[in-house]
């Protein structure tokens, strides 16, 4: 990757090059003709879409429509379930299914938050700095600073600053989920993938997570899978509707929910099925 951009820099005029460096590309994620198979199941059938940098994109659709599968292709968590992937997936300008890609490095730049909060059975502090420690960062001041910043950005700092060394499992479900977000943010990812991050939480905790998503927008490109259409309307800029492994429609959230182009989208968002 570094080699390629270097060669690119040599060939292009300096002013264009500097422009490319200072200005992030318009699309953080660009997917072309993506097919995913689990054994004989054809889970995704030719998905092509682009996700704008710094925006919140919601993926909606009935259960089993492939939206979670799609999310998991974006940081290659599908590798664990032995999925077969065809097509091209560019994340932050890199084809992440090319053999040279370092999956570990990819997952550091593309954070993920899961449906059920899954903090490690360690202290709150250790949860946040977990990724850093494994990168070999030992300086206590650096770790403390990153922990504080990450917890602040995840809107959890005020609630936990006096008990950073308590077990993370003593937190409530909503706090645990924000801790998981802080843990992902500590690695300074560019993209944040969220797989129904609020579906296991009560309404108050859900509202906090949604507020957090809106606060993080701009600094991070966020892709969120949700079953809750009101949630999609509240937090997202763009929405993609999946059905039976196909992308039916993708548009700005307002357009998709007020003037859907496809009949099936209209049926789904008006609650006629799914």
């Amino acid at each position: 990757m570094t080699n390629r951009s270097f060669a690119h820099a040599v060939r292009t005029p300096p002013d264009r090059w500097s422009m490319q460096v200072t200005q992030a590309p318009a699309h953080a994620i660009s997917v072309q003709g993506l097919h995913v198979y689990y054994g004989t199941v054809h889970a995704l059938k030719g998905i092509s879409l682009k996700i704008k940098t710094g925006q919140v994109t919601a993926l909606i659709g009935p259960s089993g429509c492939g939206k979670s599968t799609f999310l998991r292709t974006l940081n290659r968590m599908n590798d664990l379930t032995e999925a077969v992937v065809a097509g091209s997936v560019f994340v932050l300008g890199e084809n992440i299914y090319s053999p040279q890609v370092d999956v570990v490095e990819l997952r550091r730049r593309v954070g993920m938050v899961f449906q059920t909060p899954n903090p490690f059975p360690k202290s709150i502090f250790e949860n946040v700095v977990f990724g850093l420690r494994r990168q070999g960062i030992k300086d206590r001041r650096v770790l403390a600073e990153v922990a504080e910043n990450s917890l602040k950005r995840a809107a959890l700092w005020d609630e936990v600053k006096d008990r950073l060394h308590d077990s993370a499992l003593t937190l409530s479900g909503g706090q645990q989920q924000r801790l998981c977000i802080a843990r992902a943010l500590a690695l300074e990812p560019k993209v944040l993938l969220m797989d129904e991050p609020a579906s296991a939480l009560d309404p108050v905790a859900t509202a906090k997570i949604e507020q957090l998503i809106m606060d993080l927008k701009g600094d991070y490109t966020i892709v969120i899978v949700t079953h809750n259409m009101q949630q999609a309307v509240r937090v997202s800029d763009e929405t993609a509707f999946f059905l039976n492994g196909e992308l039916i429609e993708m548009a700005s959230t307002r357009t998709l929910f007020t003037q859907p182009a496809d009949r099936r989208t209209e049926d789904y968002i008006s609650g006629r099925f799914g």
Partner: protein
Amino acid sequence: MSKTNHSAARSRKRRQLADRLMSGLTMVCVAISVIPLVSILGYLIYKGAGAINWDFLTKLPAPVGASGGGMANSIVGTGIVVGLAVLIGVPIGVLAGVYLAEYGRQSRLGRSVRFFADVMQGIPSIVVGIVAYTLVVLPMQRFSAIAGAVALAMILIPFVCRTTEEALAATPHDLREAGLALGQPQWRVTLGIVMRAARNALVTGIMLAAARISGETAPLLFTALNNRFWHSGIDQPISTLTVQVYTYAIAPFDDWNAQAWSGALVLIAIIFVLNVVARTAARSKYVERS
């Protein structure tokens, strides 16, 4: 109306009777299974406690005919042989268990290793003794503590392997995903998260395995042999409590028989302590996920 009420009451009575009968039956079975345990312990204390004194715990066996003496060398010997067996067996068993749980869960190799580990757990311990005799004693031309430890390790490995696998398999899958999603390579997720989360269960499994092999006699009879004195190196014959108890129990001397009871009591006490420690000491500050 009254008729249905009547039959409802009757069926309820029958239900209650059956319920009482079943719980009574289970109570009786509990009593039957506890009685041998309690009576063995009681009889051991009755026969063995008398001969336990400071000399018994600190002195070497007395020469034939002389009174007094103790089993200090056997107590230490059991500690050494079991300790060596744990040193040899635990790394192998734990890593094999990690393979089964994290890498070879569905693979053909994984399935056959699991099968053989289960079979190994059922192998008579005297057979293990013969194998260790062939593998270690014959080449060394000598009975030794290390031969005994190898024999015990062979019993320990499948046990630790399976408890490790079960402990790791019981940790929630989403912990692994969380670790991988944070950009951790698989081995670090296994070592730093999964094994950490399963630490209590791992330690418990190892302690129980140690307790189990502490009570083995047959594999030591022709590997570690016995020694009436302090051992002179782990490549030399060594005394263990089990073999010493066996030797003294079948001896034609009354005071030796009495000492055999005391040795058995000490052995039970050691195993009891190992079990209690296994279940309490390893509790972590960060409780397991509910």
